[in-house]
């Protein structure tokens, strides 16, 4: 079973590697790249803890093979902060107490990043719809929704994400 050479841009940095075809993208990110901010939750594409942004869209990295990401661009939670400044979503989760245990948070942030890219003035309903693929077992979602609203407002005020 031959290994496959892949080249993936992660958080702006080009990475090349030889991987087994069966290697999951989430394992590539966590183990090969040592970016452990992306969490593995259910490992069955339900919980959304492993969500990363692939070519601009939120995907569950436990249900993608690393080879499928060849030639593509990925953003993980480590790529959100910019020159020491938190992303408005990160700030929102901090200000609005959008987490308790924090396990779902990286996935919630990445889903939010892709979502707010296409909608900077979301209704509460749109936000709840957007996070329906991300499970949180602590907060009851109320503060996560507030965190998204906080970030949306910041982005609207500040121009870009």
């Amino acid at each position, binding site marked *: 079973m*031959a290994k496959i050479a892949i080249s993936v841009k992660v958080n702006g940095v080009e990475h090349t590697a030889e991987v087994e*075809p069966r290697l*999951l993208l989430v394992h590539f990110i966590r183990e090969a790249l040592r970016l452990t901010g992306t969490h593995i939750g259910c490992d069955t*594409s339900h919980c959304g803890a492993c969500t990363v942004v692939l070519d601009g869209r939120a995907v569950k990295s436990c*249900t993608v093979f690393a080879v499928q990401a060849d030639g593509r661009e990925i953003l993980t939670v480590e790529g959100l902060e910019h020159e020491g400044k938190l992303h408005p979503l990160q700030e929102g989760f901090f200000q609005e107490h959008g987490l308790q245990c924090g396990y779902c948070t990286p996935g919630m942030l990445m889903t939010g990043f892709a979502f707010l890219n296409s909608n900077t003035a979301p209704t509460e309903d749109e936000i709840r719809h957007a*996070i*329906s693929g991300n499970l949180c077992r602590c907060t009851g979602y109320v503060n996560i929704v507030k965190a998204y609203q906080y970030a949306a407002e910041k982005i609207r005020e500040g121009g870009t994400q």
Partner: protein
Amino acid sequence: MIPVQFDYAAPATLDEALSLLAEHKDDAKLLAGGHSLLPAMKLRLAMPQMLISLGRIKDLAYIREEDGQIRIGAMTTHHQLESSDRLREICPLLPETAGTIGDVQVRNLGTIGGSLAHADPAADWPAAIIALGAEIVAVGAGGKRIIKADDFFVDMLTTALDPGEILSEIRIPAPQGRTGQAYLKVPQPASGFAVVGVAVNLTLNGGGACESAGIAITGVASKAYRASAVEGAIAGNALDEQTITDAASHATDGIDANGDLYASEEYRRHLAQVYTRRAIETAAARVK
């Protein structure tokens, strides 16, 4: 959960994919969005020795209008179908169905062609494409052939595709005249799959009576099916409450319904009737 080892190829053309498929035969599996196949591989329910990704083939993801048909490339994602303004206008059943599948992340990768070829008995697309009277384009070594949606689903996880064929396109007759459509679904709360899903595509005549009806149901049996008895009971009739209720009572006529821990056979039959009634009412109320 780690799949067994396999070899991987990502051909650049459909022809290359067909030759790989011919070479590896039953040892090969085609990978589209992967959102049915990867979970099955992780559980080792599927153990292909050769995985052929269609992800690098250009021009398999599109929504076009041609010869009175809506033509959808097999690799078009649920998200692309859900977010198409044009489809919302000319065939709203497609975006409505797409929006009920999985969640945001699943819809971003999962494809209509992958879902149809997988033929999960609780998938949403089969009901929609049967109700719309769609055709499936299958490409093989001998060229193209057209399979009617009604004949495409053979049994649970089994389609009319030959082992050497690739589903390349879905063709839907563009709805004409006074049409109303709806897809209504009871999602399984954990999986999101349809316990019951009912797709309705109605055309009314000038007098307001039902000229034609396409009604198909998923989730109930080992494959999605056309509810012919329901269609027959409303065709030619004015869609009043009594007619719709009577027609919907035939939703599972002649069907061997499934039962499981979440929904017994009896409950599924009941749901199918209630949701068929509601879906017809909804579609009728949407007629423009």
